[in-house]
């Protein structure tokens, strides 16, 4: 008991004149202790807080207030309504700018596919050598009236237009486009892909390494559909031709760090695609370029990425594309039905 008292008295520093009386450091937060960290002895520091309460109000007025910028300004700007913004600008004394801008632009591609082709169900499942497959193949383009009218319109501008030759050329453009995407050669990509398709094709391909190989076509490419539209004028004609490709390809997508993300370099897949090619035929320098791809509902889902991911809760209006945000949307070879090649 006396020992405890003695320790208490010594703490008050009345008995030992040599010791320094310091208040124990009070902290309201926990400091993560690194066992290797050297212990620094506490030393009396200059304290900013003035503990005398008498002139506290007057001391507050000694500091002249400065208007500090708001770090969340940018974020708040997006959430503001136009009226709130006008009020803020008045406050700051900024005059509004003139709203109109004039700059010439050139329409080099349409915004979508006009009267898209509807591929028949079960296409590509039967071999052409079988009876049922041959029947399927009998859907000649000549029977499609509107497509023939469109092809005749194309021949008005380009006399040497032939569907068979065009189908071969289209396959070459298709291969060029894929190679350009794998190399990310923007110049070549713009020449083989329209402005409407360019962002769709490149948006997930930027930070990735793509290795794509074209192994061969299982069936010769076929023109299945053709349409012509005019934009603004009757003479300003755009032609859209849908070509059916049934090919063998390999696709391997590596992410930023060189890890395989999708597909395989070795395993070949059979790919059935309906690609829309567009050309500004009224323009004498117009090129046939990939414009769109038609994905029918009966097409089986694509091959998923090698890693697992969390599927977001679908809201009623949300499209299915929102869910598969991690999948590469590039003309993906994966998941197309394997061909029952048995005759």
């Amino acid at each position, binding site marked *: 008991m006396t020992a405890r008292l003695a320790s208490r008295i010594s703490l008050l520093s009345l008995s030992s004149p040599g010791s320094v009386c310091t208040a124990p450091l009070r902290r309201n937060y926990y400091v993560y202790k690194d066992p290797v960290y050297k212990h620094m002895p506490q030393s009396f520091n200059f304290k900013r807080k003035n503990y005398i309460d008498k002139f506290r109000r007057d001391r507050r007025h000694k500091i002249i207030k400065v208007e500090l910028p708001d770090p969340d300004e*940018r974020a708040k700007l997006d959430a503001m309504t136009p009226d709130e*913004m006008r009020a803020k600008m008045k406050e700051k004394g900024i005059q*509004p700018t003139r709203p109109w*801008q004039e700059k010439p632009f050139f329409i080099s591609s349409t915004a979508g596919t006009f009267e898209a082709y509807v591929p028949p169900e079960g296409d590509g499942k039967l071999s052409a050598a079988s009876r049922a497959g041959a029947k399927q193949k009998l859907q000649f383009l000549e029977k499609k009236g509107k497509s023939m009218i469109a092809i005749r319109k194309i021949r008005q501008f380009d006399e040497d237009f032939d569907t068979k030759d065009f189908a071969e050329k289209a396959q070459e453009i298709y291969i060029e486009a894929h190679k350009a995407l794998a190399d990310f050669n923007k110049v070549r990509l713009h020449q083989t892909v329209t402005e409407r398709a360019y962002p769709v094709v490149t948006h997930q391909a930027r930070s990735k*390494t793509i290795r794509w190989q074209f192994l061969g076509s299982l069936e010769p490419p076929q023109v299945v559909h053709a349409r012509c539209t005019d934009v603004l004028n009757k003479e300003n004609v755009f032609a859209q031709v849908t070509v059916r490709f049934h090919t063998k390809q390999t696709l391997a997508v590596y*992410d930023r760090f060189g890890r395989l993300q999708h597909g395989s370099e070795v395993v070949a897949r059979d790919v059935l695609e309906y690609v829309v090619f567009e050309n500004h035929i009224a323009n004498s320098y117009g090129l046939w370029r990939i414009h769109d791809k038609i994905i029918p509902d009966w097409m089986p889902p694509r091959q998923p990425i090698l890693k697992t991911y969390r599927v977001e809760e679908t809201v009623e209006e949300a499209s299915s594309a929102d869910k598969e*945000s991690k999948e590469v949307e590039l003309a993906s070879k994966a998941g197309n039905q394997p061909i029952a090649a048995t005759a």
Partner: protein
Amino acid sequence: MGLRALQSCASRSTFIWPIKGCPTGIIAHPLLQYPDIPGAKGNSESCSFHTSSLLCWDRPKGPQSWPKNNKLKFPPTPLGEEQRPAFVCHMKTNIKYSPSKMWYVACLVRGLRIDDAINQLKFVHKKGSVAARETLEEAQKIAVRDHNVEFPSNLWVSESFVGKGMVIKGFRRHARRRMGVVEYKYCHYFVTLEEGEPPEHYYHFRRNLTPQEMLQEWLEEQRMRTINLSL
């Protein structure tokens, strides 16, 4: 009145902050509108109609090069070699907090797993811990969404440091007509998250040596001894 024009003007003040969206002076024709790309929100806002003029463009201020590390692309790892771990760099600029005080928060988080780091920051009674926590959470989301990280918890803080931001000088009165300067300090907080397990010791050179290592060191010291001016 163009909404974008309003926004860019409202932001023009003595303190100009870096602009988020890309500036374009081109009016998009309705037919040329690009379809809304799903999942491409990332850095830029979707801008099919953009009406601000180039004169309104605010030059980006503050640190710009840290997020560029996220654009580095590595070639595919050859067969047999170890896979490179994913990393993501993120920052939060212009935090109204002193960099010297923020340093403590940055040091706390180094070498911890992401979940541990966030949980520790929840209980740190410092203003900077809020900003640090937001940065870590954002970085985690970006890693999962954009950088092919499979599990959000499989990340650890490999780099965490503070940079000095702008300093706005105000003043205060002292006795006897003397004036003092009051500094309002800002800081930037930078973080790198890496995928995988953190190392046992973040500061390798400061780790506690095992008895075997200590013995080796002692032996080397003993062997290094020489007698001066001897043959």
